[in-house]
């Protein structure tokens, strides 16, 4: 790492997360202005976007090669009052909370009090949404049956495709003109709306060009006063680049990175979409520019690496906008989930690993920063040496990159109806979510607490925590004469709550479609321009709405325990069991011990519990998959938790697997912490029994002590483990390589371990930023696997 990158990296690491009111103020100014009046909603949105980009500060960080910040400085984080307006209490809480805080000083609070809150109160998407959602949705939400992704952040969950590296805004404006000219103004009653949307897209395209030009001017100014001739020539070159992109398509490696970064800043300035934004298959998008630069001598491997490193820092400068309440608990992290994809296959199906794939891995290894997150795509066509290179990074305990099964992702996407070329151009984003990059809107709508629904089933539809009957009356379990009756009751309850969630999704989709178009994002995802329809209204070529199942391991073990102990072996009656749960196992230590130690558990490659995992998976899948959703989408499932398994655990009482009240649930499709006793191969076998190909992603966490990664022979075995799991259609696996004593020390003395990054659940995070329950969970798991 050279001095410049070291400095930029340090600056980013040391920057304080704080709230910047700049965007909120500009947005509010615009909406209060004459300019906003009498315009359609999409055009208003586009004009507000333009107003922000025209007037926002355009900071430059010392020595940087890629320019553009969302806020006035690194980690100065915008708010989005049109989506969710924070009140003064919220700001104080965000400022003061121990984990994932953002400084909000008196000035911020004053501006909020005087300008932001008065305008946006009761106008924000969140306000509109909650006023329209039915009572049973709110009851279920409050009980912790599901979460809602779109209550504080807008739909995003998408990734840029390769085509956008070959187009500039001028090309897109030409496409917009073409789309407008093809409208049938007489026979298409939607054509007026389409004209407004297309106009909004045009304004947004012009706005981002204008923003880039502002940088060009600033860079030119800076070059005049720059004394160092080297830097002066750099600044001139950068100015030239900003004059060019994103107006026209990039022609060099440097231009391509700057081009993308302007688009990224545009997307996260327009709104606060989930998973920020993502350049996706970076090694594929850039390889042409890279080769050309090397061939014509304008680029060296070192200069490419420096540019990539500078690019990397930009991501790290942009934490996820502050979240609160349930949303903070389900996704408690500064990470904004940009997931760089490396490897995989080309659109023609051939091995896509190239020289740049390895160079990017080198950058990941050297930079060792939280953002962007990274992953490798592994197809059966990719060489083992590629996996081995990635494992060497993983073995340093960094938790990145994670490893994905390209062949599974392609099958998942094609089975949903995508054509194979679009599927091969895809990958995974966010934590583990499969998507067709550049062509799909695949919105995560919320986590779904399967274990909670089991608890409600055991209580005949009643939620013991909120003391409300929110489920169906499926019968008192004490009266069930067979395990199948219990399973049928559970199935009915899952269908019931899935229905409530889907009904809510339709309402929320309508709220966004009607009130919060995203014309800038719509420019970037095919076929919004061609269709003249906004991203948030179903303009993308493919639209999918996901509900993410959580607690598979805990639920499976609980069902297995009831089947084994109550029905098959009659160790205990159902009523005794319910009593023990009700008492949180107080006075039932022997029974609990029996549940934990003598009862079959998911994760050991034993069919008795694993068949129940499959059963549960199928129940959830069949309740959701194929049902229509907002934005002309279809509902699908995936299995990932981010941090929601901690929140979801906190709303559930004791469970029959021996878990006590309030403890975290199992995460992803991983077994319950410490329940797997036959080693990693058995875990992978268990996890592969559910049909990953009928999901849009599953998450499997494996924690290893460093000894498993110590030499070539060990690495080869890990490669075989991965290959074996992927042969069984496993979607994703991630490795945490760290010993328990290090983690314990970090918990005790966080100030000494600020840089310790661990794999959490589909993403990496600073260990010291994790809530205590998560820290303990990771320590527990790591100890368990120590040999």
């Amino acid at each position, binding site marked *: 790492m050279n001095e410049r990158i070291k400095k930029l990296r340090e600056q980013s690491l040391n920057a304080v997360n704080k709230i910047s009111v700049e965007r909120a103020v500009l947005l509010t100014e615009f909406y209060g202005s004459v300019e906003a009046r009498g315009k359609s909603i999409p055009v208003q949105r586009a004009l507000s976007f333009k107003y922000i980009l025209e007037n926002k500060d355009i900071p430059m960080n010392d020595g940087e090669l890629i320019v553009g910040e969302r806020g006035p400085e690194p980690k100065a984080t915008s708010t989005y009052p049109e989506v969710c307006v924070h009140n003064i209490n919220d700001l104080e809480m965000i400022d003061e909370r121990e984990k994932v805080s953002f400084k909000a000083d008196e000035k911020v609070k004053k501006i909020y009090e005087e300008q932001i809150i008065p305008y946006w109160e009761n106008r924000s998407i969140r306000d509109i949404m909650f006023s329209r959602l039915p009572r049973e949705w709110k009851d279920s939400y409050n009980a912790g049956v599901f979460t809602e992704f779109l209550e504080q952040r807008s739909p995003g969950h998408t990734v840029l495709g390769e085509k956008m590296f070959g187009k500039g805004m001028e090309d897109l404006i030409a496409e917009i003109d073409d789309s407008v000219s093809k409208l049938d103004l007489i026979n298409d009653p939607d054509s007026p709306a389409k004209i407004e949307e297309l106009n909004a897209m045009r304004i947004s395209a012009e706005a981002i060009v204008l923003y880039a030009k502002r940088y060009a001017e600033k860079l030119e100014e800076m070059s005049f006063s720059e004394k160092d001739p080297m830097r002066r020539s750099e600044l001139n070159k950068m100015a030239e680049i900003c004059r060019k992109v994103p107006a026209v398509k990039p022609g060099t490696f440097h231009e391509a990175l700057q081009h993308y970064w302007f688009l990224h800043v545009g997307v996260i300035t327009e709104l606060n979409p989930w998973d920020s934004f993502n350049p996706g298959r970076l090694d594929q998008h850039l390889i042409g520019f890279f080769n050309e630069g090397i061939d014509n001598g304008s680029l060296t491997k070192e200069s490419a690496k420096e540019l990539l490193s500078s690019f990397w820092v930009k991501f790290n400068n942009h934490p996820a906008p502050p979240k609160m309440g349930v949303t903070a608990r389900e996704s408690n992290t500064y990470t904004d989930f940009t997931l760089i994809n490396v490897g995989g296959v080309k659109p023609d199906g051939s091995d896509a690993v190239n020289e740049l794939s390895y160079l990017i891995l080198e950058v990941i290894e050297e930079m060792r920063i939280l953002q962007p997150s990274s992953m490798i795509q592994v197809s059966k066509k990719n060489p083992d040496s590629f996996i081995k290179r990635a494992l060497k990074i993983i073995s340093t305990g960094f938790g990145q990159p994670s490893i994905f099964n390209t062949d599974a992702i392609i099958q998942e996407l094609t089975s949903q109806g995508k054509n194979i070329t679009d599927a091969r151009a895809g990958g995974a984003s966010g934590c583990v979510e499969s998507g067709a990059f550049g062509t799909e809107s695949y919105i995560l709508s919320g986590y779904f607490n399967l274990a909670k629904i089991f608890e409600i089933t055991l209580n005949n539809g009643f939620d013991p925590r909120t003391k409300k009957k929110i489920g169906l009356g499926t019968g008192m379990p004490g009266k069930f004469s067979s395990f199948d009756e219990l399973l049928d009751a559970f199935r009915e309850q899952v269908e019931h709550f899935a229905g409530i969630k889907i009904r809510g999704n339709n309402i929320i989709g309508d709220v966004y479609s009607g009130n919060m178009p995203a014309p800038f994002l719509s420019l970037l995802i095919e076929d919004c321009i061609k269709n003249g329809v906004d991203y948030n209204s179903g303009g993308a070529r493919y639209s999918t709405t996901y509900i993410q199942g959580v607690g598979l391991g805990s639920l499976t073990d609980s069902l297995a325990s009831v089947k084994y102990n109550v029905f098959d072996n009659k160790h205990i009656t159902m009523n005794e069991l319910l009593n023990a749960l009700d008492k949180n196992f107080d006075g039932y230590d022997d029974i609990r011990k029996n549940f934990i130690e003598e009862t079959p558990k998911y994760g050991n*490659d034993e069919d008795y519990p694993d068949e129940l995992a499959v059963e549960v998976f199928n129940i959830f899948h069949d309740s959701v998959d194929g049902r229509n959703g907002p934005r002309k989408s279809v509902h699908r499932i995936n299995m990932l938790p981010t941090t929601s398994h901690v929140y979801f655990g906190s709303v559930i009482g004791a469970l029959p697997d021996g878990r006590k009240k309030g403890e975290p649930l199992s995460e992803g499709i991983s077994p319950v912490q410490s329940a797997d006793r*036959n*080693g*990693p*191969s*058995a875990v*992978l*076998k268990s996890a592969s029994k559910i049909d990953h190909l009928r999901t849009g992603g599953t998450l499997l966490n494996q924690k290893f002590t460093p000894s498993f990664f110590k030499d070539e022979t*060990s690495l*080869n*075995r890990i490669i*075989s*483990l991965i*290959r*074996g799991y992927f*042969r*069984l259609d496993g979607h994703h696996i991630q490795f945490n390589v760290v010993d328990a004593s290090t983690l314990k020390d970090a918990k005790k003395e966080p100030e000494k371990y600020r840089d310790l990054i661990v794999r959490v659940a589909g993403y990496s995070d600073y260990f010291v930023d994790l809530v205590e329950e998560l820290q303990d969970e990771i320590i527990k798991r790591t100890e368990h696997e120590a040999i």
Partner: protein
Amino acid sequence: MDGNIFDIKRFALHDGPGIRTTLFMTGCPLDCLWCHNPESRVHFKENGGKSRKVDSTYVIEELKKDLVFFEESGGGVTFSGGEPLHQPEFLVAILKEMKNNMIHTALDTTGFVDRSVINDVFPYTDLFLYDLKVMDPEKHKKFTGVDNKQILDNLKFIFDNNGVVRIRFPLIPGYNDDKENISDMINFLKDLTNSPIIDLLPYHRLGISKYKKLNIDSSTEFLSPSSDDRIQEVEEMLKINGFKVGIGG
């Protein structure tokens, strides 16, 4: 067919090539002073031992579970113990089924067994992990309780019949790490094969807690593992004589 085992360990990384599942079979005719699997010698849950009687079909199903990982890694199943050849019929029944499934088999043995048993398992064994402990017959008897003539004869037989062998040499400080023993071993092996492979297994103290648990006296309780330097010396000695050497299993 029933047999006695005390563990099935998956993702075993030290008992042969690739990812393996190791079957630990109960019972051993030897009584090595340094034994690190004392539970293998204790039958049927006596004294807290883990030995259990199981059916071969159950064992076969368990051993086949990681087939996909065996195939990906060039791994397979390892039979260890205890002395797996101590239960020859049970072992052959399982071995045959492994070979029917094209699974690589390794046999971790002391070789202290009738030739007829070696003959029985030979066709189904891809790799012999063959223990050589002490070359001097007197000392061998003293440290392990049995004579080593049969052990050495069987090893010769396996080599003569082109069996694939990795020698396992447990390095026990003060018992068999002397120069004389090592040169005897080198000379013996050089007569048998041109390309001997040997795994040096440095003594570790993991067995000690098991002795305590099992209420068995251990005469090696106060033994310390060899130093890294000593291990390296032995390794050099073997390498100079053309051996391929692995450290640890």
